[in-house]
């Protein structure tokens, strides 16, 4: 079980965290990973200078609506 936490705080929200969440939701369904990936939200990860903050089992990443698919392939699907 992978826990994926997306920051939905103000700073990440303005950088597109809604689109990131929607895209992850779509990809999780597409690859039928609902049982293996738990998607959660949080209001700040203290990493506001970068892109949308996402944690995968406590490892911190910075993504954007443009890079989310690539990120999903690399860090969620193939790990």
């Amino acid at each position, binding site marked *: 079980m992978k826990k994926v936490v*997306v920051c*939905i*705080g*103000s*700073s990440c*929200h*303005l950088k597109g*965290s*809604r689109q990131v*969440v*929607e895209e992850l*939701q779509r990809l999780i369904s597409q690859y039928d990973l609902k049982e293996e990936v*738990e*998607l*959660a*939200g*949080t*209001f*700040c990860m*203290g990493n506001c200078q970068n892109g949308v903050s996402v944690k995968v089992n406590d490892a911190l990443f910075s993504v954007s609506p443009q890079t989310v698919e690539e990120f999903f392939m690399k860090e969620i699907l193939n790990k």
Partner: protein
Amino acid sequence: MKKFDTQVQYLKYKVLREVARKAWNDTLYDKLLDIPKIIIPGPEPTTRCCIYKERAIVEERMKLAMGGNPNNPNVIEVINIACDECPVAGYEITDVCRGCLAHRCQDACKKDAIYFDHNQKAHIDKTKCVECGKCSEACPYGAIANFKRPCEKACKVKAISMSETKAAQIDNSKCIACGACVYQCPFGAIMDKSYILNVIDLIKKSQNNEKYKVYAVVAPSISSQFIHAKLGQVISGIKELGFFTVVEAALGADMVAYKESKELTEKGFLTSSCCPAFVMYIKKSFPKLVGHISHNLSPAAEIAKYIKETDPTSKVIFIGPCTAKKAEFLQEEQKKYIDSVLTFEELQALFDSKDLDIYSLSEDVLDNASYYGRIFARSGGLSDAVKQALKEQGLAEFELKPVVCNGIEQCKMALLKVGKVDIGNFIEGMACVGGCIGGAGCLTHGEKNKDEVDKYGMEAYEKTISSAISMIKNINN
């Protein structure tokens, strides 16, 4: 630079600031007795008969700044010695008295309180008068006027009366903690209890948000406050105080609008749940209508609940314009979600207790909610949001008939009609005139505040309620 509407607010602020300043340094209990002299340095008195009385009143304000009387369940308290000097007004004979022969006023008075001078002009013996008003009704010239006390005039739910010692007293069974009297008393003799020490303690014990995280949930009416600074600077200031992050209560409002509109279509008639003073008013004065109150939490509690789901060890502090929120968070159901409450007045005091110059800070961002969640801060906003939420959920065939009650007097008029005449199907009750922007905990109250809220609403990144809450619906914490 104008920070407050009145000198009363300024004095209260200075007390809060000094208490907070010492609490941050852990010197409050050593330096407690220095505070009255810091605030009233003397040697000349400025507001009362002598500096000793002024200092004694400051001591009473300090007690309230430190949480008030723990044996009094109400969050609004009278400072008896501050009220003492308030002139006992009530019914007075004015110059209009013509010194007639009939003396109907004397005949109407059951307490034998009316007497006449050598010109046959009437006078009232205030030691006998019980302020019943019969003389005023009887006078054919309308020469007897009622100079009601400002606190009693402010209290539209009639919870304030005069005690035997002639000081104001609050009937807790009627008081809805709206704070109208706190704002209106020209002597500052009524004050809301403050939980600033509680907040400072929560921040300090978090050890820079390492033990647990402290979240600030900020009401959208903040857009009409701190007008000389940018909102982003205020957000930076809140973080400088030691809060981990700041979340919009307006996102909770979006969530509430969504659920409340659904609930309305199921039940067919609702009274709103956002304003804690309005909800308290129904519970205390219209108990038969309690079943109609929306079962939703208030927006602040709704978002606080969500924060606690995402971060179970977190502490959530609501910052808003509202004194009734202080009463709300003490209730069992809300206590689980909201750990403490601050007003904008208290936030200003906290900034200055740390000598934080918010005007020099960089601008942070605050953007979680939609336009509709943000306009909850003004009268009519909630009804607009419910209408929008019905539309977004494909429930627009339900005919929304909102009754927008702006201020507790309009709420009373609407509630009296429920079940008797068809007034509509959704009662939006806001105890303060103007909505939350008229709250007693606001720094300033101005004509333009509504425009500021609407402008802030327009600036929201999310344009619809559904898009603002979609993240919450898409993720299962």
